[in-house]
């Protein structure tokens, strides 16, 4: 039985080995099943779209980019297996792994394999702490960290002047918890106080209790750090309860268009690394193509997947030879313009500082209030 399995595996590897000869393989480890599969799917779509564009424009020195996606279920175990599997295909770099815990588990594997890991979505500050100077030389991150985004949002809210108290609601994951500590840090000295912090379990259907508390406490604003299903559920019930507090935080306004058009989220604000509404020619083209190809609007994940490939391609073009080590050196020298119009340049900790966008709902449409560096 075991022998048969191994034989089958051997055949599988042989096939994979053959395809890897001609193209430049870039691995992608992201959740394609499980509760955040939709996010992973978008990252995959974004990356594939970028690869397609680059290949159509002639590829890298005549070679085609091939994106190999593997499911990591947002679980470190599957994360490591997926990356080990990708490494069998001899990728020049791997993009991943959407979830912070998976990314942290995968970093040493990539370090051992001596290939660059491009982080596009995971927000944990520990990733940056461990990368670059005195740490993991192979990890690069293009998305702004929680801290950068929170500072931008804190500054915006403070400038408004009308907000003095904030109730924080976040999912009990690195995203919500990390968001909370970043917000708390960013709001220090701004005169804004976080009066309560609630962390709910992912997949919680009912938010009545916390909303009742907020309705009673009447904070000036609610900072929400939720994703996907929960965000939609929360906002629905938030609006259903006619709560007067302003909605803010990291609200993916783009995915709430029906609610926004219904006028239910007027004056809500949000900080995000990306927005469909961003008015740059590159973004307009990206949104257009993405929608034409996949039938959905891009989101932050698709943007980061797209951008990850662009950054890698840019470095590959500058790279002296097509080896992971040369690619890493080229990445260090990256200085390119992002789709957002910001600049991508890695610091000592291999962290790039793209823009933070503050968005606001005005008259049933999303407008970008300010953009700032992170």
């Amino acid at each position, binding site marked *: 039985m075991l022998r048969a399995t191994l034989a089958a595996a051997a055949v599988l590897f042989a096939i994979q080995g053959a395809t890897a000869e001609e193209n430049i393989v870039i691995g992608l480890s992201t959740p394609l099943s499980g509760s955040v599969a939709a996010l992973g799917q978008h990252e995959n779509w974004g990356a594939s779209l970028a690869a397609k564009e680059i290949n159509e424009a002639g590829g890298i020195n005549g070679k085609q980019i091939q994106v190999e996606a593997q499911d990591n279920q947002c*679980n470190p*175990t599957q994360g490591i297996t997926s990356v080990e599997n990708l490494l069998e295909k001899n990728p020049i770099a791997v993009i991943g792994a959407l979830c*912070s815990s998976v990314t942290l588990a995968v970093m040493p594997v990539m370090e051992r394999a001596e290939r660059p890991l491009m982080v596009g979505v995971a927000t944990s500050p520990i990733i940056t702490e461990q990368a670059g100077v005195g740490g993991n030389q192979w990890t690069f991150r293009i998305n702004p960290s929680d801290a950068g985004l929170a500072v931008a949002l804190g500054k915006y809210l403070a400038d408004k002047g009308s907000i003095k108290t904030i109730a924080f609601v976040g999912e*009990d994951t690195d995203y919500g918890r990390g968001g909370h500590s970043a917000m708390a840090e960013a709001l220090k000295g701004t005169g804004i106080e976080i009066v309560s912090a609630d962390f709910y379990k992912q997949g919680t259907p009912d938010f009545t209790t916390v909303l009742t508390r907020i309705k009673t406490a009447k904070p000036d604003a609610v900072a929400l750090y939720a994703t996907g299903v929960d965000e939609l559920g929360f906002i629905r019930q938030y609006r259903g309860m006619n709560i007067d507090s302003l909605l803010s935080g990291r609200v993916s306004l783009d995915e709430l268009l029906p609610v926004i058009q219904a006028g239910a989220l007027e004056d809500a604000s949000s900080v995000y690394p990306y927005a469909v509404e961003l008015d740059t020619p590159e973004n307009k083209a990206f949104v257009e193509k993405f929608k034409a190809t996949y039938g959905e609007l891009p989101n932050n994940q698709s943007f980061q997947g797209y951008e990850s490939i662009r950054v890698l391609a840019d470095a590959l073009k500058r790279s002296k030879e097509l080896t992971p080590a040369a690619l890493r050196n080229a990445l260090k020298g990256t200085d390119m313009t992002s789709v957002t119009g910001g600049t991508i340049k890695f610091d000592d900790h291999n962290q790039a500082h793209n823009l933070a966008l503050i968005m606001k709902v005005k008259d049933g449409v999303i407008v970008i209030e300010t953009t700032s560096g992170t």
Partner: protein
Amino acid sequence: MSVSTPFSTSSDAGVQPRLTWPLVVLSLAGLILLPSIWPSSYVVNVLILAFIFAILATGLNLIFGYTGLLSFGQVGFFGLGAYLYALLTMDGGVSPWLSILLAGIGSGFVALLLGYPALRVSRASFVIVTLSVTLLAALLARNWVEITRGPMGIPRLPAPSIDLLGLGTFSGHDPHVFYYIALAIAVASIGAIYLLVNSPIGRVLRAINLDEPLAASQGISPKKYQIAAFAVAGILSGIAGSLHVSHLGIVDPSIFDPYYSEMLLIIVIVGGPGSFWMVVVSSLVFMAIPELLRMAPELRMVLFGMVLVLAAMLFPTGVGGYFEQRKLAMWRRSLRS
């Protein structure tokens, strides 16, 4: 009738084909040599996972297959062991090897404490209580941030290393070294359970599973044995969990992923509850299958769901049970003639 009748005294030996031992030795030799023949670290990694699941599945087999209690707490103890390992090594400064041992003992101890309320009422409530324990443990891991660091998890965990005098130290962070560590611990813990289930204690466990009132009338305290078996299965899960995160290098609440519970159940059901080696083989096979079937993950899970439905409908005793059925048929034939 002479005393030398070749009746089976160990319940397992008679059921399994006679080739069992040579096969076990051969497979073991194969596993020891494998990394030198096929040094792919991907394959090594999949096998490490298979060893860890074999330990976990053997634990579930002990409590479900032999003792007859369907437990959904195994993944809870797996996670508990994982967190104990992380806290002991990172906060307690305990060495990795000792931490694995302590994680096993700690998980077993918690199982011992939970065994009583869980077994208090009925088998139905045992199932639900053990399931809730896993859910509660996950909640705790996420929300008791001061201790568990919450959803951020605890990264940079050390791995046990092997110190061969004169040859230097081999770090377990190298998958090829860890492979042998995992193999050794798997052989030791699975071997210990093999001895247990084939000892008179194992016979008593099977007896309780088959007919609890009869066992009680013969002076066997079913609860005592069931709780003890639950604790031993807890130890195994704890060891598997600590081993697992020492390899991953990070522990976070996803260690309680229901996916593990589902996989674990499939491994034991298809292998055959109460069939020792079939469950071990099944762990290896089912850890390889997802790697070979890396197509549409949802479809794969639909497929696994169907496997469970089919197994429950057609082969409730799994592959291992098939051998037993054949043996029974043989007996019936021989008695008729």
